[in-house]
């Protein structure tokens, strides 16, 4: 007996064996392809096949550069421009309001009178800037 959960569907031993024999015979002799079908399928396969992958030659990129970018590049690139700008701002700030240490350093290095002369120049420049 080939049992199932539904007794109405249960096959007798003879019925099950009969079907198993038929299935086995059908499996042993599967239907062959009609003449020409295999050739058609192969032709379709080749016709639909993507072309072999080949990488296209890569042309060197042409970069249009602005005059400003040219100047930046000439000065050493953006990193150099950053350092240059920092030095410019710091120098301008020191020029406007020199710290006390600067005066002491100038006096030590140059002597009293020379330092005073330089200080006078700086102060005069400072006053000119502030007063116009």
């Amino acid at each position, binding site marked *: 007996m080939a049992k199932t959960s539904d007794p109405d569907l249960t096959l007798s031993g003879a019925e099950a064996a009969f079907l198993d024999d038929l299935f086995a015979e059908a499996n042993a002799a599967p239907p062959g392809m009609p003449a020409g079908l295999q050739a058609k*399928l192969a032709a379709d*396969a080749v016709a639909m096949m993507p*072309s072999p992958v080949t990488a296209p030659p890569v042309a060197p990129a042409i970069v249009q550069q602005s005059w400003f970018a040219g100047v930046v590049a000439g000065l050493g690139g953006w990193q150099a421009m950053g350092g240059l700008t920092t030095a410019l701002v710091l120098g301008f700030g020191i020029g406007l309001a020199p710290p006390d240490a600067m005066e002491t350093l100038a006096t030590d290095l140059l002597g009293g009178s020379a330092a005073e002369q330089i200080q006078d120049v700086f102060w005069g420049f400072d006053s000119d800037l502030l007063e116009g």
Partner: protein
Amino acid sequence: MALDVTDQTEDEVLLRLYAEGNARAAYALSDRFGPIAYRVALRFLGDGAEAEDVAQDAMMRLWRAAPGWRSGEAKVSTWLYTVTRNLCTDRVRKLTRTKGVGLDQVAEPADPTPGAEDQLTQAARIDALQEALMQLPDRQREAVVLRHLEGLTNPEIGQIMDISTEAVESLTARGKRALATAMAGRRAELGYSDG
């Protein structure tokens, strides 16, 4: 690295080689899967010309799917069974809509005057089985064919038919019951003794 195409080359590898433009993979795939598509379509539809069209259509879909095939998502064979089944279902619907009959209704009826017993061959038994299969409702026939003639597991059939494993078991059991009933009167004619 260039891979050699042999009978043992895995389906997915063949498909990838095909997508890369390997002609040997194209021939190997059509040799491997073309007969499956045709055989299943013939057993589902019972009509050679229709089965031929379905097989060609199913394989064309495989060629189109190859470049975008995602490895590990589905077995190539399961995918092909599913596509072939869907194409067969579409054919039956179209025929039913245009002519008002299903393929199983236009299939050749059983020969009422079978030849002598000594002329019965394996081919005659296979034909009788196919005739009985064509008398089954479509889904029962599909389940029985995939289970007992294609040798697929119930979970695989469930995936192909988009139903649960339990539903597959039920369809198969009902299909076999109906087959046994349909074939009962032909046991002697087909060379089987009553038992």
